């Protein structure tokens, strides 16, 4: 990168012609897709005349359901980039057996770094945050999260992070230091460019957003439960949401500290993690994994919550071992803070420390095993319906235990010594994150989609998608276990063992099938939107649901419930349906206060993005202005008094009576007709 000087440097920092992606055709194509995609979307919205609608109904909305949906849209968009990058890497490894392949080493390094960063921070995190946002307040009988504006700020900080990672595809090069960004490799001595700076600020934006999200969810669950919703009546998904939120509150700060100190090293020439002058990269490893390991459970716990809902709903049966599952969830959350050292057994510490952390890691296997068995017992003596959600959940059960097995192996320090840093490790954590995390999120997406939009997703394409993801995963990662055991290091741009060829080709095939799975998801969405009139479920209960989120129309009104429900049982909605009190008018309706839309969060997001971009390119005025603008937005907002809007009781009553009239005119369907057009969301009692 050439140094810029003079006035240009003052105005544009290190940004120069060299930053443009003309160094390789692949980079140019990637950047063009981003630029054209953004322009195309903008043109499309303009052509449809939807800017105003988008701004007033979505972007400035403080409704937890819309914020949740926007999180999931972000997750699916970023998932597309993540999967494409994965296929590019698989293709490179399949081609680069004793040959350089088509990706130069530097580009390959950027790919595995962005792939990991995107998949963790901009797919997994927004997906689970979106699902929790959409579902949790409805499950606990609340009208919104406790701090709606803060919720929107979290969203827009996350969007700003995602936008920055997209910008990095167009301007400059991303870090090659992997998603964990280990120094000293990410120090300016070894990577002087903007790459690690992009990585640092992308993560910082995302981690601040997640900390605030965790705080918001935890307070909501503690303080906003409907009358009668005791802790031991919370649906398991809400329990996992609570544990995940608590983990976010305590585990995101270590990441913020790790990236901040690395930034001090890079920007102010300090010596936290440098080789010389007393720096010590081992501190970074500890800080990063003090975040990184709880993060794994931040990701997996909400998926466990989804599986709990799906297994009990689609076997038409109460969840087996509810309290056991709750205690297991809490045990996992607590233990997750005691195992971080297993990410660096090979750093040369004393064997008793390694052994202690290895055993702590294995302890997590106990509650996790209990959960698996409790889910099996939930299916046992049920009436199992093979919906798309249930298929994802079953594939999870069968594949996740394989990941559990390899996890136990990796937790054994002497075994870790031989498979650490190999593709065995890569296969292991993908085994946990794809069948565990992602299948959970996709199951939840299929499960709650009708609640969010009022129509079911197409069943056939759902099954095709599920089959592709399952098969694709097996083919893509099981071979890597084998080559990992044979000592193939992760992040290899070129492979020198010809005997790996069949395995890597198989993995390539798996990658392509996963790509087909991703494509099927979008086809399913498209087909479902086209056929939405056949699949409408306005009454709101398409799956004979058990918890409160099914007790309102689909899509639910802004304020979720016409009157706040009184909770009497763990399966609150099933209890109501069994007693015939699920669809009754209230004796008394109240005015409902809901937050007005606010542009503050969008403003903060844009300001934060500018600030981060300025920091990356050393455009100091922009960094300062951005940061100042973000804080100014907060202060200005604190002077706004008229933040709430009242929905009069009469309007609520009218809406409720309208819905009840619709129900009265609707035929309840048995579970045999679940997938037919006859299912408009009213379940026959006692299936």
């Amino acid at each position, binding site marked *: 990168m050439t140094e810029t000087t003079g006035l240009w440097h003052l105005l544009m920092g290190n940004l120069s012609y060299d930053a443009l992606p003309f160094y390789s055709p692949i980079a140019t194509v990637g950047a063009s897709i981003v630029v054209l995609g953004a322009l195309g979307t903008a043109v499309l919205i303009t052509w449809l005349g939807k800017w105003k609608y988008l701004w007033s109904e979505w972007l400035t909305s403080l409704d937890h359901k819309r914020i949740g949906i926007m999180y999931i849209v972000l997750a699916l968009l970023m998932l597309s980039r993540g999967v494409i990058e994965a296929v590019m890497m698989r293709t490179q490894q399949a081609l680069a057996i004793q040959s350089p392949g088509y990706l130069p*080493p*530097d580009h390959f*390094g950027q790919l595995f770094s962005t792939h990991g960063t995107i998949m963790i921070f901009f797919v997994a995190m927004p997906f689970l945050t979106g699902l929790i946002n959409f579902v949790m307040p409805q499950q606990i009988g609340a009208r919104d999260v406790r701090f709606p504006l803060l919720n929107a700020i979290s969203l827009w900080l996350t969007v700003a992070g995602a936008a920055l990672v997209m910008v990095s595809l167009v301007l400059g090069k991303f870090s*090659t230091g992997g998603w964990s960004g280990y120094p*000293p*490799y990410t120090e300016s001595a070894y990577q002087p460019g903007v790459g690690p700076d992009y990585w640092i600020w992308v993560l910082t934006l995302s981690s601040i957003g997640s900390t605030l999200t965790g705080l918001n969810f935890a307070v909501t669950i503690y303080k906003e439960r409907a009358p009668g919703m005791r802790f031991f009546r919370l649906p398991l998904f809400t329990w996992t949401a609570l544990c995940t939120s608590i983990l976010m509150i305590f585990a995101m700060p270590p990441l913020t500290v790790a990236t901040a100190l690395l930034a001090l090293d890079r920007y102010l020439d300090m010596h936290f993690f440098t080789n010389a*002058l007393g720096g010590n990269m081992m501190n970074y490893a500890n800080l990063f994994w003090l975040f990184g390991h709880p993060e794994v459970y931040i990701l997996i716990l909400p998926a466990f919550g989804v599986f709990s809902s799906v297994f009990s709903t689609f*076997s*038409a049966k*109460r969840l087996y*071992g*509810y309290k056991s599952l709750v205690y297991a969830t809490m045990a996992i959350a607590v233990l997750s803070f005691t195992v971080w050292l297993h990410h660096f057994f090979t*750093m*040369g510490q004393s*064997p008793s420390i390694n*052994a202690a952390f*290895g*055993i702590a890691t*294995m*302890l997590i296997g106990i509650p996790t*095993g*209990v959960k698996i*068995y409790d889910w099996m017992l939930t299916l*046992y*003596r*049920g009436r*199992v*319906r093979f919906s798309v959600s249930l*298929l994802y959940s079953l*594939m999870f059960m*069968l*594949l996740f*235990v*394989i990941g559990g097995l390899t996890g*136990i*192996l990796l937790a*054994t320090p*002497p*075994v*870790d*010594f*031989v498979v*650490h*840093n190999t593709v065995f490790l890569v296969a292991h954590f993908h085994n946990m994150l794809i069948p565990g995390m992602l299948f959970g999120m996709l199951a939840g997406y299929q499960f709650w989609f009708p609640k969010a939009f009022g129509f079911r997703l197409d069943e056939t394409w759902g099954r095709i998608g599920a*089959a592709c993801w*399952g*098969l694709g995963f097996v*083919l893509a990662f*099981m071979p890597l*276990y*084998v*080559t990992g*055991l*044979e*000592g193939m*290091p992760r992040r290899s*741009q070129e492979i020198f*063992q010809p005997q790996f060829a069949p395995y890597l080709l198989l993995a390539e095939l798996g990658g392509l099938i996963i790509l087909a799975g991703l494509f099927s998801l979008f086809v399913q969405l498209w087909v479902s939107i086209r056929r939405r009139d056949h699949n409408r479920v306005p009454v709101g209960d398409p799956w004979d649901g058990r918890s409160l989120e099914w007790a309102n129309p689909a899509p639910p009104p802004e304020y979720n419930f016409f009157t706040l429900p009184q909770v009497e049982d763990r399966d609150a909605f099933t209890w109501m349906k069994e007693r015939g009190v699920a669809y009754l008018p209230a004796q008394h309706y109240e005015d409902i206060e809901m937050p007005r839309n606010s542009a503050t969060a969008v403003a903060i997001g844009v300001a934060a993005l500018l600030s981060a971009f300025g920091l990356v390119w050393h455009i100091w005025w922009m960094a300062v202005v951005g940061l100042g603008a973000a804080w100014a937005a907060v202060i200005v907002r604190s002077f706004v008094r008229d933040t709430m809007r009242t929905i009069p009781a009469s309007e609520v009553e009218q809406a409720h009576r309208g819905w009840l009239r619709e129900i009265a005119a609707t035929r309840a369907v048995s579970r*045999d007709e679940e*997938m037919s057009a006859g299912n408009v969301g009213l379940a026959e009692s006692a299936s």
Partner: protein
Amino acid sequence: MVRDRISLRSLPQLLCVIGGLVLVLASAGCALQGNGFLNPVGPTAEAERQLFFEVTALTLIVVVPVLVLTPWIVWRYRRGNKQSAYRPKWEFSWPLEILAWGVPVLIVIALGLLLWNRTLRLDPYRPLSAALPPVEIQVVGLDWKWLFIYPRQGIATLNELVIPVGRPVHLTLTSDTVMQSFMVPNLAGQVYAMAAMKSQLNLQADRAGEFLGENTQYNGKGFQKQKFRTRAVSEQDFSRWLEHVQETGKRLDCDQYAGLMKQTLVPKPVHYARAEAGLFEWVVKKYQTEPSPACQSLTGESARD
């Protein structure tokens, strides 16, 4: 009937997944003849391989029932099968719960004991034999090559580790660049090499042969090519090789070493007849103090005793 169709339609998918799984795992069983620890050549890798199978076997006690029972349960209790029992309100059973917690607890206790015992025994810092004195070798991780210094013999090599068969080898590692991870999978597990710090690794080869050594920690553009040849040779061949290097190699002095610090790939192993004494210690120390000592402050003597 509709309900049968629903359950039958999903069957191929499940079979697909399970089938694929079995296929790949089966192929994993007949391991590749290769460089992994599953083809051990030394006592450490041998013990690690054994532990790998023991842990797998113990864990399978929990895993296999899930793999077998889950498909059976969902098939037996599918909605289409009206003969099977249906207990929608059943949600707890003490005996089953004790089993669900008890079995994993017992297995983790067993695994924990095994883990404690083996982790202490297979500590990479622990000497392999009390009787035989080990061959001392100092290892410096560089971008993107490995430097091996034999301090007793006064020689050094680049990207070639030669060790005598049947003798324990004691490696002391450091890095003169970013963190790297040193591994010869056929012989032993890996350990990190970090600047300003020393780590250790004990290993031994039980038979002669040529094995792959590698860096497993990504450290930049040349990472994937940072491999080295490990040759285990008989005691006689080892002495002969030492003599050969001492006669034919060049000298590793400060200037030479400064060249090695550049980010380069080395296509062929290089041999040094004489390595500067204290070079390894200097590499470690130069990061510890400011101002760091100059390489020229070394004695200029060969490392030979």
